[in-house]
């Protein structure tokens, strides 16, 4: 297992939320959408200009900007 930030993950890669390092409004918003430690997710793809990123978790698709995905650390299988 390795820990990477969401921005570094490739399309189609699966992972589990390890930690959300943001506090305040952004942190609360990210957690409200269900990104809490232990949640499995998959990177679905990126927008035509590589930002934002779309991830699939808890049966829905969420998109967030790269600047926000920097706050999200994920556990992934070692490649």
């Amino acid at each position, binding site marked *: 297992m390795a820990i990477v930030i969401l921005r570094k993950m490739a399309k189609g890669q699966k992972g589990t939320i390890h930690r959300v390092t943001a*506090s305040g409004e952004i942190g*609360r918003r990210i*957690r409200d*959408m269900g990104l*809490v430690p232990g949640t499995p997710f998959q990177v679905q*793809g990126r927008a035509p200009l590589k930002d*934002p990123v*779309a991830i699939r978790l808890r*049966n829905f698709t969420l998109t967030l900007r790269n600047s926000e995905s920097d706050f999200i650390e994920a556990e992934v299988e070692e490649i």
Partner: protein
Amino acid sequence: MAHGWENLIALAGNPNCGKTTLFNAITGARRHVGNYPGITVEKKEGYCQVNDIEIELVDLPGTYSLTAYSPEELVARNYLIQDRPSAVINIVDASNLDRNLYLTVQLLELGIPVLIALNMVDMATARGFEINAEELGRRLRVPVIPTVARTGSGKEELLQAAAQLVQKGAVWDPLYISYGPDIDPVLDKMEALIGSGSFLTDLHPARWTALKYLEADVEVIRKGREKDPAISGKLEGLAEQVSQHLQKTLDSYPEAIIADHRYGFITALLKGGVVKHSHKTDRLYLTDQLDRVLINRFFGPVLMMLIIYAVYTFTFTYSKVPVGWLEAGFSELGRLADSSLPPGPFKSLIISGVIDGVGGVLGFVPLILFMFFGIAILEDTGYLARVAYMLDRVFRTFGLHGSSVMAYIISGGIAGGCAVPGVLAARTLRSSRERIATLITAPFMNCGAKLPVFAMLIAAFFSSKEAQVMFLLTVLSWVAALLIAKLIRSTILRGPSTPFLLELPPYRLPTFKGLLIHTWERAWQYIRKAGTIILAISIVFWALMSFPGLPESKRKIYDDERASILAGGAGSLARLGARIDEIDNEEAQAALKYSIAGRIGSGLTLVTSVNGFDWRTNVALLSGIAAKEIIISTMGTAYSLGRSRRGEKIPLSGRLAADPSWTPLKAFSLIIFIMLYAPCFATVTCIIRESTWKWGLFSMVFNTLTAFIVSGLVYRGGLWLGLG
């Protein structure tokens, strides 16, 4: 107890959970749409009758949570706390259960009586899981009714359950969740402190208040400080201690631990027999298959352009016919008034003030209906979220948001749009700074009313390169809108971009009824405005351009001239009529120059000589604030060409081309000015509706200033380069 509207029930739920569809299914036509005081969050109220109980239903804005993150969330929360409805119907999307239950848990923690509508159970089944509603209800200790809002199934059972809850007079009974060894002890301490001082306990349960202090909820803390600074201070201190402790020991925050435990509670809740997965959970959903193409890196943008172009064409092509009917109707009305009213200021008021003014605004109604219908389709299918996703990166560079694109395009990003529906389309933007920047800059686009003015000027001065100049103007309007948006966002609306966390909802086929309701609600609000504010403003403008009338002595000169022509009697009848018309036109020009608007126009030449404009142009621009297409007819009067009805541009075009004081440079400077200056009144009214009257006023002053500076630079720069 079964009388009056005291049986108030609120509808709460996540965005895209089918809440509005359910609201429409329950209330039908007995509804009312307004705004929550002070903000542009829509407030929908409706009525229904169950057995013999009258129930008032309030559709709260769709929210993911009850924190104070967005205006919608704040509105929903404050409504529950302050208006204290008898119960909340919480609509939960069964196909997306755990995230939807996050809001449910917060409602239960607040303690308000809750009734769950487990919606889209059909979708959940299709996605391969069954939910045991009874078991879920037993565990949460609230009624859970399976529904399918699209078909109306489960609606009756839901209403019966709601009526029972209301009749029983259910009391507030907060849910108690454990937040673990780091938070629970301090929560207890805070709860005791709050209880002993009866601190905000009239509004919400003590534990809830304590939680909000730990979550550093700005709104609750503000209210707490007002209520009792001493207790609030102690609570803030306790929260701060925990926060520091958590950061040191766990490198975490109280709100993170709280969210973790809420989701932990939900996971535990759904274990052991509530959700049953069938074998086909891994199959690719239709939405994912569609998204493979629709948000594909290459095909996505191409298809997006085609789809947006299709909506645009649909709006402006198909609305042409009904717009034509309305225009014909109003000009018929004008003719009727012309022939039946005695001449005088009253007649002029009715024709030029009331009929032209209100007609000009109501003429937009078919356009708005078509545009809203198109947007409702994009919105209700879930495509609009994809557009925002694909374009966000581009628009963010200029301090805007991916969703700004619709507003720009409809306003005339493809030349010939209209800023009225464009500004209203900005409603899909959730973040306030980006929305206001969009509202202010969208009117820079070349709307359909500016086009005839441009066409007249192009025909006069750039007739050999019509298409190129038109294309250049379209590009210029985009450049101006984006750059000025950037300017606004780095000065008066400075601030980080609002976090972009956008759900891409599954594609859904919208119901026709839903689309019609959606469309009509928005259009009706516009029509109501037309009858009131716009009518008043048109009358003011009419008065400015008609008063004071020419003094008797001056009028007599024209009367004498006419009399002498008639007395002379030489020449054919047609020649005679033409001479009389000429004098009429000269009189109209003199009257316009003599009116308040004319004097303002003359006074303004002190400033506008920088741009090369004389009093005639100024008056025309002034009248153009009412509606851009009027610029041509006012200019016609000012050049004593007679008050030709709209669209007649050839004589004016020729007149300007022949005038030695006009140069291509001056014409281009005027085009730039018209492109950028104050939006028309219909648009300003909409900007006010979508923000505040201050921003409406700002758009007029700021945009005119921008126009003045840019067009002045163009004119003076051109002169300096020797282009004049």
